[in-house]
């Protein structure tokens, strides 16, 4: 067992691409679910809106990154309107059904051959935002001994975590305000909020839009990091990874989704590399599992760990136990 490789890749997974992308997606879900009680099971759709909006604007229309990213965000706002208008008046579970379907519709549309001239079909779009790395002001990598980063990685981390911190600050400012109070009250009982003169449907729409915009930012960061976008990155499990990160960190807490995302990808990477190491060093016999299967088994083990966490620490890492105890009433 080469522990330094295990630790290095775990640490790396906790701070690079996926951790950033899913932190943003989970911050959005935190607005939806953690604060407003909206069950959005289609966060992948909002991520796709951001990613494809940016990708299409850059590759098809030759826009620069800034306006293209803005276009991706505008698309996610339109998506929120489109989903919210018919469903936000209805009971919470309808939104869950509609959003999960909408995200799948989006993925299948961008994947279809019909629009492949614009969306790239199942191959997706490539060569997006070369300007992102061209403008990298960092000219040397960073070696921290146990883990090292290239200048490209560093540049992405600076921008990515910068966006994450910005979104966290926004979330913090909003949830401590009277606006945040209305959202939390809607989560508890929307009729009570209505009876106090608040336009509940409109607040739910605002929440859906804001959380969707954070999700779109996740999609945009994903696109910029890999300089490409593929439709199957926005399959349904993407939403549930973000949800898992949120629950793991603690819903309804500003730091919850961010730390949750780091831990989630840390756990996934740790189990993956550990298993591969164990197999390579004959600690696990090949009749039980081979290196290819490790990729699947990591999710099984990670799932088991998360289930255990939910049993022993329902509120997640940052959650408030006193609040969770109130759910039984």
């Amino acid at each position, binding site marked *: 067992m080469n522990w330094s490789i295990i630790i290095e890749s775990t640490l790396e997974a906790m701070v690079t691409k996926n951790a950033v992308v899913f932190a943003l997606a989970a911050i959005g879900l935190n607005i939806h679910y953690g604060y407003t009680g909206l069950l959005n099971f289609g966060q992948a759709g909002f991520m796709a809106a951001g990613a494809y909006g940016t990708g299409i604007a850059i590759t098809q229309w030759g826009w620069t990154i800034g306006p293209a990213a803005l276009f991706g965000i505008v698309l996610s706002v339109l998506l929120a309107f489109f989903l919210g208008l018919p469903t936000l008046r209805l009971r919470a579970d309808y939104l869950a059904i509609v959003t999960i379907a909408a995200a799948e519709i989006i993925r299948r549309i961008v994947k279809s051959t019909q629009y492949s001239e614009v969306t790239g079909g199942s191959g997706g779009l490539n060569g997006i935002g070369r300007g992102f790395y061209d403008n990298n002001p960092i000219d040397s990598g960073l070696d921290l001994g146990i883990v090292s980063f290239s200048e490209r990685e560093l540049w992405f981390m600076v921008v990515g975590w910068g966006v994450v911190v910005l979104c966290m600050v926004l979330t913090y400012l909003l949830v401590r*305000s009277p606006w945040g109070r209305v959202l939390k009250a809607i*989560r508890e009982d929307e009729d*009570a909020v209505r*009876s*106090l003169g608040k*336009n509940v449907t409109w607040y739910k729409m605002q929440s859906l839009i804001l959380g969707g915009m954070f999700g779109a930012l996740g999609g945009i960061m994903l696109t910029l990091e890999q300089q490409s976008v593929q439709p199957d990155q926005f399959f349904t499990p993407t939403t549930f990874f973000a949800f898992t990160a949120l629950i793991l960190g603690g819903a309804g807490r500003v730091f919850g989704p961010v730390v949750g995302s780091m831990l989630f990808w840390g756990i996934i990477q740790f189990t993956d590399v550990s298993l591969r190491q164990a197999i390579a060093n004959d600690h696990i016999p090949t009749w039980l599992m081979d290196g290819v299967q490790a990729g699947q088994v990591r999710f099984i083990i990670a799932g088991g760990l998360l289930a255990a966490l939910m049993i022993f620490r329902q509120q997640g890492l940052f959650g408030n136990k006193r609040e969770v105890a*109130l759910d039984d009433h």
Partner: protein
Amino acid sequence: MTTDAFDQVEPRPGSPKRDTILSVDGLVRRFGGITAVDVDHLEIQANAITGLIGPNGAGKTTFFNLITGFDEVTAGTFQFKGEPLEGVPAYKVARKGLVRTFQLTKALSKLSVIENMKLGAVGQVGENPFKALIRPIWGNQEREIEARADELLKRFKLYEKRDDYAGELSGGQRKLLEMARALMADPEVICLDEPMAGVNPALTQSLLQHVKELKDEGLTVVFVEHDMDVVRDISDWVVVMAEGSIIAEGSHASIGKNQAVIDAYLGTAHEIDLGTIELDPEKH
């Protein structure tokens, strides 16, 4: 204005009031084949306490839902201060000054008691998401709201609980909180749906006192209640519903003697405690 307001009012269904704040005409609500509410005419006297009673299933809560915009009428019109209210969404009804509470208390469990109270205030600039970002814009208003909330909490004997989660309060305290929170919305008319249900008798007395004080402050109170002692104690006027319609109106004394009311209670609701209705022994 006190009970005198009813001196000249005939004790019959739909009788006109001296100073009407809320009036209802031909109000019908059907659920499929069932007519839940069918009220020809009803006027509610301003600055008085009107009790709405009736056997289970009489349509009292549905009536509340209709006038506060929580349910849509099948037919009919109603006016609040002369302004038509049918089709107006619940939140706008509340902003106009017609605020309700619920039979099943809706304390917002994971908000503290003080946050519950502050939510009730209307016209908060910080409830706009853009202005919410900058505390100086809403900080002063927030402090004023908090001061008002603290005052109400003291009055309702909830001040010691102000930083507890509402979900940690007892059932009776939640009723108190809900009433206090409704007052934060500055209502002119407050509709209380079974305010005393589940409240222990010791607390009932103080709750009743609060309701009476509301009238002294100029509010109009409409409340649904099953406990006839409560109805007798605080209501200036009693409206009786049965099977969706108003079958009687009057002072609580005249209601107890009303044959239609006795028939409605004894004929349709066998589980009702007979001891809670004032029956005139001379007539039986």
